């Protein structure tokens, strides 16, 4: 005991050589941290960003490789598609000018249509042997690879900018959001694999409900890449619509709903929209929620069209959503989400019974990517 106490006293300020060494080291640490504390903190942060960036690069490269393999396997191109794929990953779509917002929706829709046609043509050139379903799946695969490439490039930009300017705030803002970005990148990496083999994804919850309702009924194409079927539910005529499957597709459901309303000259009692929605932490995956409004994501063009059409005809619109997080939405469909389809159908029937009369027309729209879901 005496020996230990003596040792501690010696280390913390004894007059012999050990005490001097400890005191000098202590003072050294104090001075270094006083003058270079922020710089050390910055270096630690930079190191952390660098480690994540390295992982992002690996995820991006793996995604690119997987996309390339799928194109070669399915599309059987005559030459090497590598250069074309690399060019595709760098594609950009420039948003229309919004200084005068009037008519911007139609301008944006035009840009998106041109982009879509261009993407499809590119994929057809890369994979000449692929059929329509495979082309849609390949397009989705390449879009996931594009998203991974973009995430990597943005993080790299901030990392290099932070390193160049040695600004703590640039590095800090990227370091703080890194966990969320990594989660998103991993979700896209899983999505890419799901798209490459045509597996249904969580976002297809709405399409799955619509498919279950319309299965066995005659379908027709009501808008580009959107199919509709006339189904009798509880004595009402339901026009069920979804994106045309089983290829990866979201279609133009807004256009489809607008066309159906025009076809029925506005005589629609209610519209029920089913979509996947982002859950908050703590909420259960696959839980179902109900409300009003156009349940549809994306750039907003389709939502605008639906809202415009229902306003003209004063049609009430109901929403049913299946909760999931971003990772679930783009990765293979979880069992909980798949099993949520039947409770959603029950809710649709209850809504129809409560909100409409016998003989009324209703529209049921299943929104989302229909990859791996037929009709």
């Amino acid at each position, binding site marked *: 005991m005496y020996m230990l106490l003596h040792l501690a006293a010696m*280390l913390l300020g004894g007059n012999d050589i*050990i005490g001097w060494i400890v005191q000098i080291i202590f003072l050294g640490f104090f001075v270094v941290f006083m003058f270079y504390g922020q710089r050390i903190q910055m270096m630690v942060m930079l190191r952390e960003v660098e480690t994540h960036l*390295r992982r992002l690069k690996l995820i991006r490269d793996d995604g690119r490789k997987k996309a390339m393999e799928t194109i070669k396997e399915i599309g059987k191109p005559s030459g090497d598609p590598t250069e074309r794929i690399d060019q595709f990953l760098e594609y950009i779509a420039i948003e229309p000018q919004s200084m005068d917002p009037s008519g911007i929706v139609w301008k944006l829709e035009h840009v998106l249509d041109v982009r879509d046609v261009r993407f499809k043509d590119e994929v057809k050139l890369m994979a000449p042997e692929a059929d329509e379903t495979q082309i849609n799946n390949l397009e989705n695969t390449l879009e996931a690879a594009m998203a991974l490439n973009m995430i990597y490039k943005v993080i790299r930009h901030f990392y290099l900018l932070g390193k160049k300017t040695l600004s703590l705030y640039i590095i800090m803002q990227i370091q703080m959001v890194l966990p969320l970005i990594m989660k998103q990148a991993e979700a896209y990496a899983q999505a890419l694999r799901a798209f490459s*083999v045509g597996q249904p994804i969580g976002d297809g919850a709405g399409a799955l409900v619509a498919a279950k309702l319309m299965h066995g009924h005659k379908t027709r194409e009501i808008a580009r890449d959107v199919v509709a079927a006339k189904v009798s539910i509880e004595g009402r005529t339901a026009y069920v619509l979804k994106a045309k499957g089983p290829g990866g597709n979201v279609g133009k459901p807004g256009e489809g709903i607008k066309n159906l309303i025009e076809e029925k000259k506005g005589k629609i009692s209610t519209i029920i929209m089913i979509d996947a929605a982002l859950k908050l932490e703590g909420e259960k995956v696959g839980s179902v929620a109900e409300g009003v409004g156009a349940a549809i994501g994306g750039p907003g063009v389709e939502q605008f069209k639906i809202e415009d059409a229902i306003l003209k005809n004063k049609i009430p619109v109901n929403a049913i959503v299946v909760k999931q997080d971003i990772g679930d939405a783009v990765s293979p469909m979880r*069992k909980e989400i*798949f099993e949520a389809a039947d409770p959603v159908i029950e809710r649709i029937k209850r809504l129809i019974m409560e909100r409409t009369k016998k003989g009324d027309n209703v529209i049921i729209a299943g929104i989302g990517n229909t990859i*791996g879901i*037929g009709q």
Partner: protein
Amino acid sequence: MADTVKNARNASPFLLVIILVFFILSLAALFIAVQSLIEQTDNLNSYSFLLIGFFGLALSIYMLLQSRGKQAHVTLELPRVITTLECPKCDFKSIRDFKRDDYIFKETGSCQKCNETMRITAIYREAKKKES
């Protein structure tokens, strides 16, 4: 696709020099400790040097091992995806792993019981025990 990010796992020469200095100082402390123990002079100081020497040695070896280059690789956990097939006539159910080009409502294969064409009724990812 130029790569401008250097390998995060490469040890910097500066760090290697620090480790080397640390290593030499630890060896020196050990040497002093052993020498004073053999000569039986100033026993308490020799134990302190022994402690510092071992601690420094362990720390420098640990730092060296940590800074060694490791092969970085992505390990994405791929979930198992299940396809359920059902016979529309006799309700016979069959479950198998997902195959490329499977899709919900696809008619594929024949029923083991009544030889009717089976239909895919479900495709989903197997639930993990830890998932919320």
